């Protein structure tokens, strides 16, 4: 599946994913406390330098940030009109920084590396019964099945078009039923392939569970 990662070999690309994420969190916290527009603007400048270093094409950057930027501008304009100009500038700069900095991390970090960080971050949850390795598998499973379900959605749409049905919501029930049927099979496949052996007598993974126990 397509990711937003933009391949490259810059310092930012080579920097460990965890380090980038921690820096982003710290910077985001700091930026919400700071109020001096000049400090905020220089923060954005640092991020801009980062984009230059990572050689991110301007188009990529724009595509990712445009909707949020439009909102920022509209809101900043409203705020400037109703209250005063300086808080509008501060809020606008903060949001600009947050979005561009976060997108910079996304653009320079591989999906697989980020999954590893997610697994590591989930390790403390082990005592509450969370299996970090299963998180990785579940993430991979979702990525694997996005195109599969996309194809199913096309099938349903074709079948309905053939019968002259065009309303958008008629897609829903057949698509959901196909998803559930697929989940039956995938659940079995996960078991067969060594994930969670919990077969029970008389309880099939393809069963339709009754509502009462």
């Amino acid at each position, binding site marked *: 599946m397509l990711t937003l990662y933009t391949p490259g070999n810059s310092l930012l690309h080579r920097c460990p994913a965890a380090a980038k994420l921690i820096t982003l969190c710290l910077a985001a916290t700091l930026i919400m406390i700071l109020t001096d527009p000049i400090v905020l603007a220089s923060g954005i400048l640092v991020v801009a330098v980062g984009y230059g270093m990572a050689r991110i094409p301007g188009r990529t950057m724009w595509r990712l940030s445009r909707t949020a930027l439009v909102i920022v501008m509209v809101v900043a304009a409203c705020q400037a009109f109703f209250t005063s100009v300086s808080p509008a500038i501060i809020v606008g700069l903060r949001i600009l920084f947050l979005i561009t900095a976060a997108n910079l991390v996304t653009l320079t970090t591989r999906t697989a590396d980020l999954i590893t960080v997610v697994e590591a971050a989930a390790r403390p949850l082990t005592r509450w019964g969370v299996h970090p390795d299963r998180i990785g598998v579940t993430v991979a499973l979702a990525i694997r099945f996005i195109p599969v379900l996309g194809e199913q959605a096309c099938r349903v749409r074709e079948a309905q078009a053939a019968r002259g049905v065009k309303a958008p919501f008629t897609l829903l029930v057949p698509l959901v039923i196909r998803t559930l049927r697929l989940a039956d*099979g995938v659940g079995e496949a996960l078991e067969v*392939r*060594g994930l969670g052996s919990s077969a029970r*007598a008389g309880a099939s993974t393809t069963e339709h569970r009754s509502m009462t126990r």
Partner: protein
Amino acid sequence: MIELRDVSFEYDARPVLRQVSANLAEHRIGLVGANGSGKSTLARLCHGLLLPTAGQVLVNGHDTRRDAAAARSQVGFVFQDPDIQIIMPTVAEDLAFSLRPSGLSKQEISAQVDDWLGRYDLVSHRDHPAHLLSGGQKQLLAIAAVLITQPQIVIFDEPTTLLDLRNKHRIMAVIAALDQQVVMVSHDLDLLSEFDRILVVDAGQIIADDSPRAALDVYRRAALG
């Protein structure tokens, strides 16, 4: 070797299999029967994916209930639809997933993955998303992901039903070349005619257990009246 001892299976208090007993020791064993006859359930019981509500299933002497892990480690299972069996996004990742519990190093896993990709002409698709493979390639990947764990018995649940003629032959050639014991559910009587032994399942019971010629005769007569 799979032993079924008085195996019954109920689903929602409805009997699916009734006191089935059989010793499956031959190299190539086929299971045939009408839709809903219980043959797929039988195949799942042989793996331990389902457990019998009564009776015992032994896989190379390991009880699928009491000794589940040992029993399962002996058996591989290939589904009809490879789309459900492939669970990782790219081809190589999916093969590597099978080796997760093996405790092998990254290099060893990678070497084995490359080896199996080579056997099934999937090398050029190594890092491709699995959903871009053709139906035949997907089924080859699903089979490779099972064989890479070196099971002693492989169970196939209608592995060729969704394939075109060309890919069906490709998959059958792969299955024919296996050293492992094979138990295969199929509707394709031509394929099964080469097997060593055929069980015909009907309404939860084995109504014929014989050489392909004799057993398939029974099946044809039962099906066509």
